[in-house]
């Protein structure tokens, strides 16, 4: 069977859009930290781009989308190294009806989901993590948390393999593009790591203002752009489901941004640019699971609720004293829960997911299924992320030294500074042998 060229083109384009979200996230996060640690912040995203892509090809895809080993918990290793997928039949093809897409297009699309999920966590540990320890965490967490959870949520029976994951097939919770597997998963892991690493020096006392809000807004824009691939691409075809997901991704996000600004205007007196950008992300997070199960008015409702709640939730860290530096919990965990659970309220059977929520006479059954899915992923991710983080912390150490943190982890862990603005630094190039090549070297002065 020949795959559908239209569907294949859309899925591959979407995969590229989603890939762009990770550098977008790097900008979004990078602008929010202080100038002395922006490179480290961005490197945590770029490190994930490298590492998770490789792991995905080697065994991640197989753990997520191989045939279930039992209980819907994890896939087997049939596809290790993408074994057997080079000339495989199209996925989702039904003879005479749907042509489907090549398995490798799906591999690529899902790869970029794994990358961004890991990268999202890094916002919780800004300014104070050792880069090597982060990379170690990223690899282990992806292996024991993300790959299995992607199997739970995204592996439908009979798509990539005969038996898929338990949330998708047994529980039948609706999570179209990853409210649980991506956002609740990353949010819970972020909370765990914020607790393992502890507060930044001066947290709650010294000002830790975003050093570049224009980067934050550029990053939010790129995230929104890429998110059309994330949500509409999850239709795995270029058709009416993708179109609905697209419109819902527009409507919910816009409503969330407005809601966040409204909360700020009422509470603080000013509508801020950081609020607009944060509201965009909160809305994107919340509509992710719901974008194929609600109509566009439902999407506006979910977006507005998520934008308002997340604007309030980002204050929790000060009340409870955990330093989730860039609000991975307040935006991704809270937004992910809001979107996942509200499917049980706003879902309409008219949408492709074909489920009625509370408001459309579906009763509380779906609401219950949504809550179980959200709770299961949250607990699993939190417990394992905490354990992995602790293990790394007591063995190789997760947190940078106090001296490094104060000087800035850019300089101490990467030997770079993001911005060279001053002209009076002195010095010259240093060659491999340690001699200084400098216009004012002794020979030149004497000559």
């Amino acid at each position: 069977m020949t795959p559908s060229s239209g569907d294949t083109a859309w899925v591959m384009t979407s995969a590229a859009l989603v890939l762009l979200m990770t550098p977008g996230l790097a900008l979004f996060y990078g602008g929010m930290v202080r100038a002395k640690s922006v490179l480290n912040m961005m490197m945590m995203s770029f490190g994930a781009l490298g590492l998770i892509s490789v792991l995905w090809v080697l065994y991640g895809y197989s753990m997520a989308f191989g045939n279930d080993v039992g209980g819907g918990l994890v896939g087997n290793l049939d596809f290790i190294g993408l074994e057997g997928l080079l000339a495989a039949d199209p996925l989702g093809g039904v003879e005479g009806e749907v042509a489907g897409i090549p398995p490798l297009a799906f591999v690529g699309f899902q790869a970029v989901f794994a990358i961004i999920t890991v990268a999202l966590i890094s916002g919780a540990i800004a300014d104070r993590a050792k880069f090597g320890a982060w990379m170690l965490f990223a690899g282990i967490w992806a292996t024991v948390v993300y790959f299995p959870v992607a199997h739970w949520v995204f592996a439908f029976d009979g798509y990539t393999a005969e038996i898929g994951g338990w949330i998708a097939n047994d529980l039948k919770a609706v999570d179209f593009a990853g409210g649980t597997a991506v956002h609740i998963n990353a949010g819970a892991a972020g909370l765990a790591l914020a607790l393992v690493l502890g507060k930044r020096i001066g947290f709650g006392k010294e000002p830790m203002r975003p050093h570049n809000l224009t980067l934050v807004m550029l990053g939010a824009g790129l995230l929104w752009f890429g998110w059309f691939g994330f949500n509409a691409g999850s239709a795995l075809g270029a058709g009416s489901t993708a179109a609905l997901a697209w419109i819902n991704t527009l409507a919910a996000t816009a409503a969330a941004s407005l809601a966040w600004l409204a909360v700020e205007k009422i509470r603080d007196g000013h509508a801020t640019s950081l609020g607009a950008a944060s509201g965009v992300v909160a809305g994107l997070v919340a509509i992710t699971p719901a974008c194929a199960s609600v109509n566009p008015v439902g999407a506006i409702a979910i977006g507005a609720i998520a934008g308002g709640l997340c604007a309030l939730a980002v204050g929790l860290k000060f009340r409870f004293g955990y330093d989730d530096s860039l609000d991975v919990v307040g935006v991704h965990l809270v937004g992910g829960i809001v979107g996942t659970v509200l499917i049980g309220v706003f879902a309409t059977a008219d949408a492709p997911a074909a489920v009625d929520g509370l408001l459309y006479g579906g009763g509380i059954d779906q609401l219950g299924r949504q809550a179980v899915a959200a709770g299961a992923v949250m607990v699993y991710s939190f417990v394992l992320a905490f354990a992995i983080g602790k293990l790394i912390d007591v063995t190789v150490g997760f947190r940078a030294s106090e001296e490094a943190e104060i000087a800035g982890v850019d300089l101490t862990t990467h030997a770079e500074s993001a911005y060279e603005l001053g002209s009076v630094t002195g010095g010259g190039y240093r060659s491999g042998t340690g001699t200084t090549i400098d216009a004012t070297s002794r020979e030149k002065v004497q000559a």
Partner: protein
Amino acid sequence: MKLVTAVIKPFKLDDVKNALESFGVNGITVSEASGYGRQRGHTEVYRGAEYTVDLVPKVRIEVLVDDADADDVIEVIVKSSQTGKIGDGKVWSIPVEAVVRVRTGERGVEAL
């Protein structure tokens, strides 16, 4: 000779520079500074978290002048930088022992 130092609001720099030029001052040194006086700082809010920013941006101007000109130069700076609102800054002068023009080696008033 005297060193006149002024700490002023950044947006008044051009006015002060032009006023000093018309007065006949040959050169000035300008640097960015931060600090606070009676007006203290301001408040910023990020994702609901309020930060007080104590140190507000200012511009520091330094001018070397002949003793006889010091009071006039202070007057010129005050007039050209005044907005009448809180946070306008300060101007002061201190005696200077020696001044040398690096290029020529001239000393004292000749070097101004």
